[in-house]
């Protein structure tokens, strides 16, 4: 009995001591927030080099977790559904963000009112970019995301090959026919072995959202819409613009102007092929220029040029803006610290650092206009020229299923399994049934 009492007393003393020490350590420990993002986005902060200044000023540590896009698209909703407080600052992408997720994140406009964004505040961000992540997508909608890495798809082309062939690149107000003809002329077998060594064009054709987004980059500038704004309750791609975009992709595939591999390729593959000098033309997300101009990763350094992609001159809202925004997790227990970090990461100086040193597309007017950005980023003019005709994408709750339906049909049409007309009709039918129920 005495022994049992003795051990019980020792146990209580150890627990009390341990608890109070732990509490003291907790108080003395600096605040650490968790940021979940994509590896490329973490890379544009210089692998965290940028945070040192932030941590030194505020005492807030930032721990970063990165996942590939597809994993983020599944993990982040899972964290939201679980009401998890693991991550304080969440970075999410236009392709996967839906209005359904608005209830899991803070209203950033309220935070901005309490503790304003620096360097001109919200007005320094293009309203269209901010609207992309508002729910509903109007200027008075709940502001869910703070744009961090938003850009447009621009034309990437091999200036040296165009000069050699004596043709002008298909820039701006031109047609997909011009684009196709240029790609056809530039397709080459350089060593006479009967195999194509340089493809005239390259695109993402995988049967998932990467493939459908890439096709949309060809179709949207000519008047196709995945869903018709402002209500997003009807498909708007089964028209001449959507059909043309699909027919040209199919034609290029059939004629060997693109590699047969495109039907399984996503952005990583397309960037790699372009950087290895195997393709002459593409319409790609602007920030990818950094890989093209990196001597460690590219064989085409100094050979690339960038321009506004082809569009119908009568279409004012031609090129959809896409990218990543920062969200403040509603279940975070460190919201104040998280907001400080979000303000810092999207401040003018931080954006200049990220864009000039690592190719991140800026999201502030003041950065677009800065001499430093314009002199050091080769895509500055192309991005500005394309953004002039920018438009938003829908954030319908069923976007994931919509992209799944669309990409499967597009892929089948490109490979020749079904006719393009049938592909778009079937996709339109299924998507209308989905959004109208």
């Amino acid at each position: 009995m005495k022994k049992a009492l003795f051990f019980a007393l020792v146990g209580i003393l150890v627990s009390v001591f341990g608890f109070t020490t732990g509490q003291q350590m907790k108080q003395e420990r600096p605040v650490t927030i968790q940021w979940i993002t994509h590896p490329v986005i973490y890379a544009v902060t210089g692998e965290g080099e940028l945070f040192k200044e932030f941590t030194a000023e505020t005492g807030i540590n930032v721990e970063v977790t990165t996942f590939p896009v597809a994993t983020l698209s599944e993990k982040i909703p899972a964290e939201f559904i679980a009401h998890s407080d693991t991550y304080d600052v969440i970075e999410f992408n236009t392709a996967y963000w839906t209005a359904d997720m608005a209830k899991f994140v803070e209203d950033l406009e309220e935070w901005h009112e309490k503790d304003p964004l620096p360097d001109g505040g919200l007005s320094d961000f293009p309203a269209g970019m901010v609207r992309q992540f508002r729910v509903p997508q109007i200027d008075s909608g709940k502001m869910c995301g703070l744009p961090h890495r938003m850009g447009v798809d621009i034309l990437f082309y091999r200036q040296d090959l165009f000069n050699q062939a004596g043709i002008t690149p298909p820039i701006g107000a031109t047609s997909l026919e011009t684009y196709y003809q240029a790609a056809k002329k530039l397709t080459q077998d350089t060593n006479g072995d009967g195999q194509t060594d340089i493809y005239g064009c390259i695109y993402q054709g995988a049967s998932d959202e990467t493939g459908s987004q890439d096709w949309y980059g060809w179709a949207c500038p000519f008047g196709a819409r995945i869903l018709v704004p402002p209500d997003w309750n009807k498909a708007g791609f089964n028209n001449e613009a959507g059909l043309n975009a699909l027919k040209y992709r199919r034609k290029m595939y059939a004629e060997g102007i693109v590699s047969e591999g495109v039907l399984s390729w996503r952005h990583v593959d397309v960037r790699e092929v372009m950087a290895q000098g195997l393709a002459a033309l593409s319409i790609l997300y602007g920030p990818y220029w950094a890989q093209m101009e990196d001597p460690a990763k590219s064989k085409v350094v100094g050979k690339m040029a960038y321009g506004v992609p082809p569009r119908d001159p009568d279409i004012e809202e031609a090129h959809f803006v896409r990218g990543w925004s920062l969200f403040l997790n509603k279940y975070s227990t460190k919201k104040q610290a998280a907001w400080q970090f979000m303000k810092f990461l999207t401040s003018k100086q931080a954006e200049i650092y990220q864009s000039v040193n690592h190719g991140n597309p800026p999201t502030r007017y003041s950065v677009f206009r800065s001499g430093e950005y314009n002199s050091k980023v080769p895509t500055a003019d192309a991005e500005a020229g394309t953004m002039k005709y920018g438009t938003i994408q829908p954030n319908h709750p069923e976007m994931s299923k919509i992209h799944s339906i669309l990409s499967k049909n597009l892929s089948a049409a490109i490979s020749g399994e079904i006719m393009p007309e049938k592909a778009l009709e079937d996709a339109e039918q299924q998507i209308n049934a989905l959004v109208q129920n």
Partner: protein
Amino acid sequence: MSIDKKRTPYLLLAPAVLTLLVTIGYPIGYNLYISLFDWRMLESTTPINFVGLDNYVNFFRNPDMLHSFFITIEYTILGVALEFFLGLILALILFEKTRGFKVFRLLLLVPIMATPLVIGLIWKLMWHAEFGIINYFLSFFGQSKTAWLAHPNTAFIAIVIVEVWKYTSFIFLIIYAGLQVLPSDPYEAATIDGATYWNKLFRITLPLIRGPMLVAVVFRMIFTFRVFDQIYALTRGGPSDATMVMSLLIYREGFAQWRPGSGAAMSVILIMITLFFALLLIKAIYKKSEL
């Protein structure tokens, strides 16, 4: 027998049974429960629209789901058949203790030791249309570049080849173990009677290792039907759902499109099918032990 002696076995089993109930029983039960709901997880964190057996009925009416079911059947039959024949041939060859058999035996174990996801990623690079090593080697035979993972037919062949490459050694191991314990008397008697190698193979060896062969095949059918990792890494079910096996579709339904009710119903159907294979296995084992 005293009361304590009667209760003791149950008391001893209780912790294990409880653990199984919690870790296996509860998830299966909950899975069955949510399969009765049309649950859109981003709209509500609890299942709210009870639909009864509609999710199960929809499985048999939905062309995508049926397509996935048949793809899985084709993949399983083709994959396991090839694994069986190759595994059997390898076991018979190495059983003859040819020169270097120990090295070959060791090398055969390498694929089975690697993680399926890693295997999928490595093979994806190998199948790459422009940079892949397979196209590189085929070019020496005059074969032009093939976009293996870009066409429905070639993508299906590619995933079957990876499956066979990875799991042939499993069948080889089981059959090889079966060959090790064969009695020598029938062979001696056959030799005396002037039987050839082929006579002995078809009349003695194969009948005697029928049990291990059956066990190997049924095991592989159970696991192949549920394949996920390597196909996710290779093709994610594309192109145009040509390699969308049931596990991938369940994953897409449940975790990409956040409709766990529909995904749960499909997973119950998958369990039923693998249970069927498991019952076949049990029957085969019982039949063997009766002999």
